[in-house]
């Protein structure tokens, strides 16, 4: 096996373990840290796909900014250990098999779609947009309108958060 393949399996395993830990951990900080683990593994996966820019942005935005704020808020509120409620019967007997079925479906369609083969053979759009210069040219020429629309959407969300937070005054 080549090094990228081994790295892929290690990081994929780490991501899955982190995701499971996120749900199972009872201490909110542990959940948050597990989520950071998932994001870091995803960043390495992006690197393996030949997208270093996306990997770095993934770490800066998700692990470095959003999750730091999560941890900060958990610390500030000093959130206690979660109480565990009874597992619902339906979720246990219908949810888990259905979840696996969904996973199988996604895997099946990915394996047979053009995107899947393009990524596997390294000829897809992901490898073309790997170069940062190329990526920014695409983003600010061809996809300028969606980019600006997203920015305005985020700005509206920030203003909304401010308005909600200031309601009492």
């Amino acid at each position, binding site marked *: 096996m080549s090094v990228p393949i081994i790295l892929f399996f290690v990081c994929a395993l780490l991501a899955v373990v982190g995701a499971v830990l996120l749900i199972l951990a009872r201490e909110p900080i542990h959940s948050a*840290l597990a989520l950071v683990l998932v994001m870091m593994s995803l960043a390495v996966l992006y690197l393996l796909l030949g997208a*270093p820019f996306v990997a770095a942005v993934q770490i800066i935005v998700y692990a*470095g900014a959003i999750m730091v704020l999560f*941890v900060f808020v958990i610390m500030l509120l000093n959130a206690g250990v979660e109480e565990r409620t009874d597992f619902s019967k339906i979720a246990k007997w219908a949810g888990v098999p259905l979840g696996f079925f969904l996973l199988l479906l996604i895997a099946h369609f990915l394996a047979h779609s053009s995107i899947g083969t393009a990524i596997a053979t390294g000829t897809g759009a992901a490898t073309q947009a790997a170069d940062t210069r190329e990526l920014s040219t695409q983003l600010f020429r061809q996809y300028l309108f969606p980019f600006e629309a997203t920015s305005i959407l985020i700005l509206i969300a920030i203003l909304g958060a401010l308005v909600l937070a200031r309601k009492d005054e």
Partner: protein
Amino acid sequence: MGFITQHPVLVVSLVKIAVLLFIVMTALAYLTWLERKVIARIQSRWGPYNVGAHGLLQPLADGLKFLFKEDMTPPTSDRLVYLLAPFLALSLALTAIALIPFGPPSVRVLGQSIFVVSDIDIGLLFLFSITSIGVYGVALAGWSSNSKYPLLGGLRSSAQMISYEVSLTISVVGVLLLAGSLSFNDIIEGQRGYWLHFIPRWHVVPQIVGFLCYLTAAIAETNRIPFDLPEAETELVAGFHTEYSSFKFAMFFMAEYANMITVSCLATILFFGGWLSPFPDSWTWQLFLPGAGLLLLGAYCAYDTVMNMRGIAQIQFAVVTLLAAGGGAISLYPPVAAVIQGPFWFTTKILLILFFYIWMRGTLPRFRYDQLMSFGWKLLLPVSLANLVITAFVIIWPLLRHG
């Protein structure tokens, strides 16, 4: 030998990592020595003086002391996170230094550039991604100790680092616009040449506002005076690392100094031309500057050894003298002199910035917490944003007029 020729990248990288770790660890130790000496000078004291000549063995003694101290873990702490925090802080701080180019990429062994461990196209972005998760070390240390003062220290520190990281990043974007690249080597090479034949084309000249914002935000990011609120001892005992003892405390200590070095390296690369010399290439005598400097240092040490040192200190300082003089003699040999030009200028610039850091610590009082926050959000951020907008406008203006 076959293994080395088959895997040059792996072998050279491992050697580079080992050498860099050794150099950085030594530099960290002697940075604490330098800091104590300079602060002592500012406060009219002697500073460390008894362990070795001029206290030169003090860092070693401190390291041994940390190793042999009792290592206590608070019984109510969150064991795993409590252990994780110092490791995270130190390993992230050291990883960041691997991206710094200490010399020109043209000096190569086995086809690998020897002055940088990892030369990647998006070096700057990657450095920011590493420093952005550096907050976790402090925040988790504060939380996992399960104690009042560390928690308050951790909270303060997270809030401070989040706030100042914004200004730090934005103040650097101006340089990125001028350089047009995220690669450290491109950014440095873009600063070659002169304005009016004598001012080096360093980004600090057009980006002086950006540099001041960067410097302020960087001092806050590394939790140093006047922004060392997370460990304000009069209010918070020792802040986030109150409950840490022995080597775990030493790891936080080392991480802080490693971060100082990283931040100074970044300032050197972005604003002061990295490993470029301030003098034109035609002045060939500058090749002998490092050697001459070391020889002068050796001469001073020799004088000091003979006149002021007694007993065992005399022998120790004689060794220092020989090291300096020998290093100076080797550096005068032309092929060596040519190779060490880049690292020499880089180190000189870093040392000047680090000296400024220490000087600040000896001079300024600490901010109050609310002052810190309003300074960061209401002054630093708008100024760095304005700097960015003006820089962008100046760059785009000729294009708009002619294009």
